[in-house]
């Protein structure tokens, strides 16, 4: 055995240790596609959106004051939104106002979608042109933001929320923010 012929093995060993460590990180919930949001700990952007459902109130920045609010961006055209939709009901009455924002959608489509799949939201608005979404830093629905009583964004979930995220992240944080 000479040193040169050990080189490929040494290289491979280094590579494998990176892979192992990355998988350990995934195991701990740190996914490669999680990108830390620059909006965390910042004041939620200014917005004033019309209601999605007729004869209901719209949704604007001032509504955030004094309440813990969970803002969920969804759309009738989004497949993953349907996947998370059934879990949203688990969050109702747990100390946070559930606000839905129908993102870049046609009102009629959004209304039909809610009628078909149920409406867990306390307040629901439509962001027709996606401007509010852009201000929030949404780059793909579904995205969920947890906002405290002062209107500061405290948590962001990219992609669908799951039962694990609800019990491990959202509910404890809502509880803490309500103190």
């Amino acid at each position, binding site marked *: *055995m000479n040193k040169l*012929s050990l080189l*490929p*093995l040494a290289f*491979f060993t280094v590579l494998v240790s*990176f892979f*192992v460590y*990355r998988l350990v990180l995934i195991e701990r919930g740190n996914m490669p*596609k999680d990108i830390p949001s620059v909006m965390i700990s910042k004041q939620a952007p200014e917005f004033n959106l019309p209601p999605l459902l007729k004869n209901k109130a719209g949704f604007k920045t001032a509504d955030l004051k004094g309440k813990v609010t969970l803002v969920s961006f969804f759309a009738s055209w989004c497949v993953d939104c349907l996947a998370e939709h059934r879990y949203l009901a688990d969050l109702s009455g747990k100390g946070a106002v559930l606000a839905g924002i129908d993102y870049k959608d046609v009102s009629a489509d959004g209304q039909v979608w809610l009628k078909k799949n149920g409406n867990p939201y306390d307040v629901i608005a439509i962001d027709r042109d996606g401007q509010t979404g852009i201000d929030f830093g949404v780059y793909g629905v579904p995205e969920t933001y947890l906002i405290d009583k002062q209107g500061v964004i405290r948590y962001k979930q990219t992609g669908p929320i799951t039962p694990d995220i609800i019990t491990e992240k959202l509910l404890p944080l809502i509880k803490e923010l309500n103190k």
Partner: protein
Amino acid sequence: MIAELGLFCLILALLVAFVQAVFPLIGAARNDVALMSIAKPASILQFLLVATAFGCLMYCYITSDFSVMNVAENSHTDKPLFYKITGVWGNHEGSMVLWELILTIYAASVALLGGNLPAGLRARALSVQSMVSFGFLLFIIFTSNPFLRLDPAPLNGNGLNPLLQDPGLAFHPPILYLGYVGFSMAFSFAIAALIEGKVDAAFARWVRPWTLAAWCFLTLGITGGSWWAYYTLGWGGWWYWDPTENASFMPWLAGTALLHASAVVEKRDTMKSWTILLAIITFSLSLLGTFLVRSGVLTSVHSFATDPARGVFILALLIVVIGGSLVLFAIRAPSLKSGALFAPVSREGALLFSNIFLSAAAGTVLLGTLYPLFADVLNLGKVSVGPPFFNTTFVPLMVPLCIAMPIGALLAWKRGNLKAALRLLKPAAIAALVAVIIIAVVKTGTTSLIWAAAGFGMAVWILIGMSLGFAEQIHLFKGDLKNSLQRALKLPFSFYGMTIAHTGMAFLIVGIIGSSLWRVEKIQIMHLGETVKVSDYDVTLKDVENGLKGPNYTFSRGTFDITSGGKSVTVMHPEKRLYEMPPQSTTQAAIRTTLMGDLYVVLADTDDKGGYITRIYYDPFVIWIFIGAAFFAGGGMVSLLDRRYRRKA
């Protein structure tokens, strides 16, 4: 019942794989013919079992048996039959069964066609192949069982991603897998040779056809995927340097190096340990690609449902297969006696040169692909490595390779005459220079003019240089045409193959330069009757029909009149499709292909005010990319016909 039969076959195949992995190896060590001869029937039996399992899965898809979870998640009754069948490999579990099927196809082919191989080598190679197969069968049965039942069965399935419902993509995975799984055969032979401790010219000759076949399929597979991306994704791009693309491109680069290196082993009986290492690396890169794509350690536009548990299993498999073979390499490689050092100016010198640059290129792509992972793990932040990195590192590595290509082909084995080669290539150099000047003048003021001019010069250099090399081989300039013809007929197929494949490189360069540097893009909102000028074409939106029905989608169809200089050229009909299950929209670009360039029209969303968002591109020479790639694969196939690969031991 059929699903259970499928699973049963997979389990039986696992048992056969075990037998095939162990006994022929013992037989070869003891020189026991009876034990060695188990390899052949076992390979065939294993293939039949896996093929039956694959057939069972296909049956579940065709009959839309939604009590099988895999079918429920990926199929739908409304899907056309063709896509029900191709849906079998449009998901993780099914594609792993296809992977395994191809692994056994190669083993069975070696068992059936490898009659000219020495018994010991064949037994060992089939045994190693079966070890890999054993690992993958374990993986499928324990983490990716496609036959899991669902109770209660849903009324209908979730459907297949509409982007995958395309004839181009239907055949992309099987061909791609025939390529990079095919490198398993070169790997198995290399390990068998390491165990035997003997690598010689005959060995190189036996292994080469299997490497060539895999390489041809991989070339076709990558090209097919690129072609699919080009015409369905609606952005006119054909290569994105995405991790999944790189996962197939790295084995291709290493495999290309392997083909060149094994030629040296065959002719000069040297560079042995390097060639063995390349065979290991090439297949390792295939395995690595599978790991990267399916474990979720990297983000990619290609979404296989990633699962860390699978990641752990594949990583373990990687450690055993690659780690094990590298340990064996470290122990055995020093004892592989290589021939004497060779002259730098010679055919083998040129092939070594090609190997240095091809491996460096593969290494660059590996670094770029894994860099986001390294950065993430080392807490350097989340980065993505995009085309700029690959273009600035990869392209310069190709330059020396292209320059050397026609020269190397003219050098003789052992001792080449560089002066004579250069003298012969003088016309090619002059023509290349003329091409550079023409481009510099015609395209003056355009961006990246230096690259464009140099690229065209290079293409002309290769094209004329390779032609001159061929003319020299048949003594075309010596006046006697009849003699030349006779010589041409006597040339081995591998020489034709080499010339064809290298010529493909010239076409590829032209296509890449044209489409990446001179492309014209127009994105706008168009109203009916409006005209947009793109390059030399006037594109007029005549009509959009909405609400048309396809088999499992509704679609809008645009009608665009294309004129050039007042004369009507053609009418184009791009479509925008909205699939029902799963609800997703796709665009079907309308493309008018000519050798000079493609006109590419996409109908995207409406602005709800009577306008349509349209994207119109003119991509000069883009078809030459695919022609070039077809020449690569074609050259490989012609080479495969060479008589010397069928010679008896």
